[in-house]
């Protein structure tokens, strides 16, 4: 027996999608959008990028709407130097690196975790960070390093894992944290002068944790429409509809930007308080470098003073040379919403999912990779 929350096919109805699409078309007209001057919405979250491609939604949407992929793929925005550092950890004798599968193929400056594994490094893919504790228990003579990648959805699960390791007194478990947080990044994007964006499709599962009110200041202070959206096709179309209502209101002088939730079965305005407490306990805010964009103040999470012993740098020497990004790559521009992957001279030629140059091609949910996989032939 399952309830409506699990019946995903109900959120994929073709006739409801058709109805939403007609509303979207009407709203685009009301907003005065044309193919030459489209309304541009940014799906901040890489899982949205994948869902939009996976369900072929771009093929259904009018030309007067442009969907831009933001910096919401944690793997893509992890700086090259951190990938190099992860590989250095894996290559340290006596070390086992545990990671989500997402990180395996991301190229560092010389190699990737996948290649390092081919060369004999002990790298294990885990589904849950808790699985890495199991590895630590089973290998007491090894240091087990978990790669702490992710946004606010994922970081609480890792905070809980650190607490469990502390409770258990596991001395051979540490993490290499590259956590990012969303609100500061959105504010930076919204503050770009002559910004190319009309609204944010806010990340549904980050919002589960941080709550919809986390976007209030961006909506109010930057007059940027923010709608929290789920991941099924109807959720996404309904989110686009809500954003276009705001855009049309703003353009016709009938209203201001606000935060709206179109993923109410999962997202509340305050978010998951228990998870937020864990985050505050184990981590502290820090400035973070986003690959392709640069340092955004207050947009990361590092281990707090009290848990700094769990930082892998306390256990291993991870000094690596600062690598240089390849010239020609426009990933930074793409993540800021200024350009599309197809605008890049490297796209599909020098830069492919197998031999990615820039961050947006490295993960399946990067905007370039999603474009390459799903949309290369669709145009």
């Amino acid at each position, binding site marked *: 027996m399952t309830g*409506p929350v699990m019946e995903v096919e109900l959120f994929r109805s073709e*006739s409801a999608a058709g109805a939403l699409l007609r*509303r979207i078309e009407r709203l685009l007209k009301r907003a005065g959008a044309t193919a030459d001057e489209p309304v541009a919405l940014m799906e901040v979250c890489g899982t949205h990028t994948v869902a939009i491609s996976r369900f072929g939604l771009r093929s259904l949407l009018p030309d007067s709407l442009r969907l831009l992929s933001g910096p919401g793929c944690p793997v893509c925005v992890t700086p090259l130097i951190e990938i190099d550092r992860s590989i250095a950890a894996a290559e340290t004798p006596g070390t086992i690196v545990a990671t989500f599968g997402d990180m395996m193929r991301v190229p560092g400056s010389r190699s990737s975790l996948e290649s390092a594994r081919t060369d004999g490094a002990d790298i294990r893919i885990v589904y*849950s960070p808790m699985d890495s504790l199991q590895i630590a228990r089973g290998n007491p003579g090894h240091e087990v390093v978990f790669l702490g990648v992710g946004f606010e959805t994922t970081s609480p*699960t890792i905070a809980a894992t650190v607490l469990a390791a502390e409770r258990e007194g596991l001395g051979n478990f540490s993490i290499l944290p590259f956590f990012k947080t969303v609100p500061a990044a959105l504010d930076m994007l919204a503050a770009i002068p002559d910004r190319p964006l009309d609204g944010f499709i806010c990340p549904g599962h980050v919002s*589960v944790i941080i709550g919809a009110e986390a976007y209030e200041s961006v909506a109010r202070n930057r007059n940027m429409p923010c709608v929290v959206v789920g991941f099924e096709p109807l959720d996404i179309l309904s989110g686009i509809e809500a954003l276009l209502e705001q855009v049309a209101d703003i353009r016709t002088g009938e209203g201001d930007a606000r935060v709206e939730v179109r993923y109410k079965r999962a997202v509340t305005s305050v978010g998951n308080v228990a998870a937020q407490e864990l985050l505050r306990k184990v981590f502290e805010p820090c400035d973070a470098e986003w690959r392709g964009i640069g340092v955004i103040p207050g947009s990361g999470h590092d281990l707090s003073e009290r848990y700094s012993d769990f930082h892998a740098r306390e256990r291993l020497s991870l000094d690596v040379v600062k690598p240089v990004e390849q010239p020609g790559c426009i990933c930074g521009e793409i993540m800021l919403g200024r350009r599309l992957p197809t605008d890049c001279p490297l796209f599909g030629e020098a830069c492919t999912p197998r031999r990615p140059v820039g961050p947006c091609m490295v993960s399946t949910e990067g905007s370039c990779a999603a474009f390459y996989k799903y949309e290369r032939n669709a145009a």
Partner: protein
Amino acid sequence: MCLAVPGRVMSIGSDIAKVDFGGISQEANLTLVPEAKVGDYVLVHAGFAIQQLDEAEAEETLRLFQELAEAADREERETRERGRDRTGENTRDYNVSTGESTNEEKGSADGEAER
């Protein structure tokens, strides 16, 4: 950014629950949803339940979608009745509208459109 899957809590033992995902059950850690009870729907990410899902809200959302769909179907039926002279409506055709989709075809609910 974050793949999370809805499931239903089947049983709870300390902070680990058995969660059913439509015929497949897997353990999920309940640390982040301390109030979850057996029978609740939760969203699971990286082996952790990260939220209890609100069934009433899901039903409300679906009801709205359903209404939209019904209105759209009515509209389409009316359009079709107006142009009923075209034949072949009831024959099963293997065609799927193909890669040469045009702008006109976009948004069409009729997957059997001829190429």
